[in-house]
């Protein structure tokens, strides 16, 4: 039984007809075609499905579509602005923090949201912030390097240094 759900998605108002008891993850991927948000475990363990809900990172595999109503949602597709990669995305490229890439959207979402609240993190704080995002490939070091690098760049206003 479908119902109308309206919310702001990556800066634009959207209105969809969806079954409210489906997972938010499935509605984003299947109905809205935003397949950047991944399903790893479907159980809250891996972070691949991370999205930002009203400024807070949540796991879309543990949310119903109904919970999107009235919220401001940012998915990985909404992180880059005006065709420019977000500094966190650019740093992932620069530091070689991507191998298969499956964890990357969730990692980037977590990192972007974390750096907004803590622009000058210690390495340990970065590791803690990403502790709910699992990566089977990289061994994490390059991901942490990338987030540290992005933080530095963002502090110096996008200038190198």
């Amino acid at each position, binding site marked *: 039984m479908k119902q109308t759900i309206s919310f702001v998605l990556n800066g634009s108002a959207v209105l969809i007809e969806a079954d409210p*008891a489906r997972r938010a993850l499935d509605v984003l991927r299947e109905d809205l075609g935003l397949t950047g948000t991944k399903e790893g475990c479907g159980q*809250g363990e891996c972070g691949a499905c991370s999205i930002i809900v009203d400024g807070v990172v*949540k*796991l879309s595999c*543990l949310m119903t579509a*109904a919970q999107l109503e009235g919220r401001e949602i940012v998915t990985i597709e909404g992180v880059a602005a005006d065709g420019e990669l977000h500094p966190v995305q650019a740093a992932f490229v620069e530091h070689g923090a991507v191998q298969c890439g499956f964890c990357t959207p969730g990692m980037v979402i977590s990192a972007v949201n974390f750096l907004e609240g803590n622009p000058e993190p210690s390495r340990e704080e970065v590791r803690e912030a990403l502790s*709910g995002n699992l990566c089977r490939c990289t061994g994490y070091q390059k991901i942490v390097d990338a987030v540290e690098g992005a933080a530095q760049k963002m502090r110096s206003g996008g200038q190198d240094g």
Partner: protein
Amino acid sequence: MGKVYLPDSLPEVFDILSREPGAVLYAGGTDVFVKSPPGKGNDGPLVCLEKVGELTGASDLGGEVRIGACTTHREIVASRLIGEHFPLLARAARHIGAPAVRNMGTIGGNICTASPAGDTLPPLYIYDAEVELQSAKRARRLPLSSFIQGPGQTLLEGGDVLSAVYIKKDHGYTFCHFEKAGQRRAMAISIASFAFAARIGDDGRVERARCAFGSVAPTVLTMEAVDTCFAGRHVEDDVLACAAALVRAGVSPISDVRASKEYRRAVAGNLVMRLECALRGTR
């Protein structure tokens, strides 16, 4: 697939529950949707409590603090009120899952799940927390330790909502410590956890102490005999050895995918011995 209700107020929740007695309540969904994902077995109707105003946030009532059931672990960690009066609870909440799980999971969900591994539970037992249950017909308050009856078993009846947790401020503890052993630091359900609070006098002696253990018995384990070991004593090796021995004898752990019961028994005692390291910093 079923309906999902998103009520804004408790009267609305009771109204829904009277029409849909079989409805499943959820707050963060981090327990209930792991067991049965929405749309894939959990066909509802579902009632999401995240927008119910009466259930969110911590408020200072003078002699006690009310923590709404839907207060998230993130909010508990960030709350100055909780940090000031109940630092042990804030510490335990910081050890739950990882950021996104703390952003979603709630104290009420942790309590209603009533897992022996629920990390907010040992601190709440130490603080003698009370829970408030509300239904369309009545509201009642009872000690958390009687509300939780066993693993996954509570006194919650059909039509009841856990609305809040109440904790009195006058516990008098001046030192607290929480440590959990898991398979990794983040995202790990406790293999054994240890919460400790004490009132320490000017001479460094413990005036009174309370200990509570998670994951080593069907519910949170508290033992008066262990608490008594500390009373009137400096925390030294012999005191800790006595307490650890009592704990190892008193636990009734199970073996599961995370650890064997023998390991849990050993670790429960070791967590007590490690109190020495935590206290050293304060001397």
